[in-house]
């Protein structure tokens, strides 16, 4: 029982403490340039959660982060670093949009399903086929191949809409694709006007369901066990008869499936068409989401909401207090820094104990747990 609590403390306490450190340092930075940190943070929080509309925007922004983060977490579990989720996201978005404005005779629900499946398939191919096979059979480092495929994917999507006669370009002045059929647009998260305005779609339900699916997949299936085994010790897994190359391809592919699903959900729920918004950087932020969540699927939900809140709240903060929204990116960096530097806490505790001679004997009692 004790170890369970220690585990929970480590998995929730450390990220919380890291965030707290970052918020304090951010507050000091804000105070140095002459603002009241409480006012600044107040505007950040109210911008993210202050009313239903803001809450809707925050949760809407969290959906792609949660979905991509889940995919990256699966790859991390197998010891693979999928740094190219951005491209998988855009290729998935492209496939979903293409299906979304073709087959217009179909009824809504199967059409939505088909569009999302298309996005997942495209993302899965982008993550699994080239980086997966190259890693499994040729030893090419997945950090490079996923990133290279990411650039190729984004250029491919750009190509689809940018040139005057590009395959998916809608005639007209702006480089954009046709809109998806109206009946493929995702419904609001709850049937409320405010969620329609803030573009919070049933995509959030999809993201929450995906977190449950990933948790079951990783914790309750043989597949998940073998993924974790490969991530824990590749050589031992090979001796245990696990087909490591197959799992490499599969995990990178599934990782891409989630990024592709994120692209599909975003297109069907928020954007409805492809346009020149390729600088989303969801892929990089989602890496941080799964890092902060320590690859826990439910942690990904919380971390996704947290970073989306920093984003929407940051816009409000800039308007209300005049502090640039990029402060939230500084906070993000600091949070990750302190998450990585988890050993800092025991080190500081040990340092404090050394400074207090009367506590020395007490420290010696607990010395075993600190080392």
């Amino acid at each position, binding site marked *: 029982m004790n170890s369970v609590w220690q585990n929970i403390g480590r998995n929730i306490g450390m990220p919380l403490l890291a965030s707290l450190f970052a918020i304090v340092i951010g507050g000091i930075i804000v105070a140095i340039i002459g603002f009241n940190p409480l006012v600044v943070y107040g505007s950040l929080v109210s911008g993210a959660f202050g009313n239903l509309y803001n809450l809707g925007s925050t949760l809407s922004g969290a959906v792609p982060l949660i979905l991509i983060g889940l995919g990256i977490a699966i790859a991390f579990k197998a010891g693979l670093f999928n740094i190219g989720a951005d491209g998988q996201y855009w290729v998935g978005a492209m496939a979903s949009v293409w299906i979304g404005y073709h087959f217009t005779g179909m009824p809504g629900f199967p059409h939505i399903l088909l569009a999302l499946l298309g996005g997942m398939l495209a993302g899965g191919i982008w993550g699994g086929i080239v980086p997966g096979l190259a890693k499994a059979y040729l030893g090419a480092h997945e950090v490079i*191949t996923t990133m*290279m495929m990411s650039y190729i994917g984004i250029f491919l999507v750009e190509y689809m809409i940018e040139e005057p006669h590009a395959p998916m370009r809608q005639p007209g002045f702006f480089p954009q694709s046709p809109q998806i059929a109206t009946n493929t647009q995702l419904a609001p998260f709850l049937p409320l006007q405010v969620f329609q305005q803030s573009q919070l779609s049933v995509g959030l339900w999809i993201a929450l369901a995906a977190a449950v699916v990933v948790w079951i997949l990783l914790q309750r299936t043989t597949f998940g066990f073998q993924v974790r085994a490969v991530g824990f010790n590749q050589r031992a897994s090979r001796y245990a008869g696990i087909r490591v190359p197959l799992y490499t391809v599969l995990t990178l592919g599934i990782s891409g499936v989630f990024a592709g699903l994120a692209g599909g959900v975003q297109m069907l729920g928020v954007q409805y068409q492809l346009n020149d918004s390729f600088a989303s950087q969801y892929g990089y932020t989602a890496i941080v989401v799964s890092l902060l969540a320590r690859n826990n699927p439910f942690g990904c939900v919380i971390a996704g909401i947290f970073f989306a809140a920093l984003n929407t709240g940051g816009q409000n903060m800039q308007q209300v207090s005049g502090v640039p929204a990029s402060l939230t990116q500084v906070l993000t960096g600091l949070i990750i820094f302190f998450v990585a530097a988890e050993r800092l806490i025991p080190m500081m505790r040990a340092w404090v104990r050394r400074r207090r001679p009367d506590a020395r004997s007490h420290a010696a009692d607990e010395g075993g747990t600190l080392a």
Partner: protein
Amino acid sequence: MTVLANPQLWAGTLSLAVPLAFPAIGGTFSERTGVVNIAMEGIMLVGAFFAVACSHWTGNPWLGLLAAMVAGGLVSWMFAWAAIRIAADQVVLGMAINFFGAGITAFLLNTIFGYNGTPTSTPALPMVTFPALANVPVLGWFFHQQSVLVYLMLLLVIVSHWFLFHTRLGLRMRAVGENPLAADTLGLNVWRLRYTGVIIGGVLSAIGGAYLSIGILNSFDVNMTDGRGYIALAAMIFGKWTPFGSFGAALLFGFASSLGNVLQGSNVPTDLIAMLPYALTILALAGLVGRSTAPAADGIPYLPNR
């Protein structure tokens, strides 16, 4: 084929290789000592910003370059401290530095210079054309109106190769990246050598960033590195963790980007050309250059039992 006779293509190749080669070689120093460095992107941004800021304040672009190096050194020192002293996960740390670098430079740009950006009167580093080089046929195409940093890059490639593979300190740094325990047993200071590698990496990455802000322009833009730090990472691995290899990979990327620029406006879709370097990299990794193996202790913190 007429494209290949276009001097702009080759001058562009060399010029576009600079912001990749500096951080790639910097990363080589870091990873050869055993510290995985994906923080180039963030450190480049920090370098780019402080180069412009100091160049503007002092009126001297060389002091701007110096400021970039100092700032890059300081940030990478923080990185090194967390990675070496408290054995933090180096990949996670690198991501942290990248976010921090992107955030702090955008933040400082807006709070110091306002939303209009850096002043247009900021002095930039000089462009140089050596007549001796410029008059050589073909080779002259490369060296038309290049920033001084281009020449510094060429020097750096040779010097860092010599340093890493032909000096005692270089040998020691590589030893620490391959087998820190053995190096420690022989009396080498593992931590200090790793600090050296990481900080050299940071300083070089910052020069790469400064090239973008005061080498070819005289302004700073939010996120102006545009993923070059990550491409430099690829160039370093592509180049098998060697200075010449990194430089070659940087040239390949430079060539492909330059080709895209030169072909702009022709019938060839530029987006498809732009894919070329990335596709080439995958092909090369998957077969042409064989397996690239990282230094054995790359990414593994060393904690001596004291």
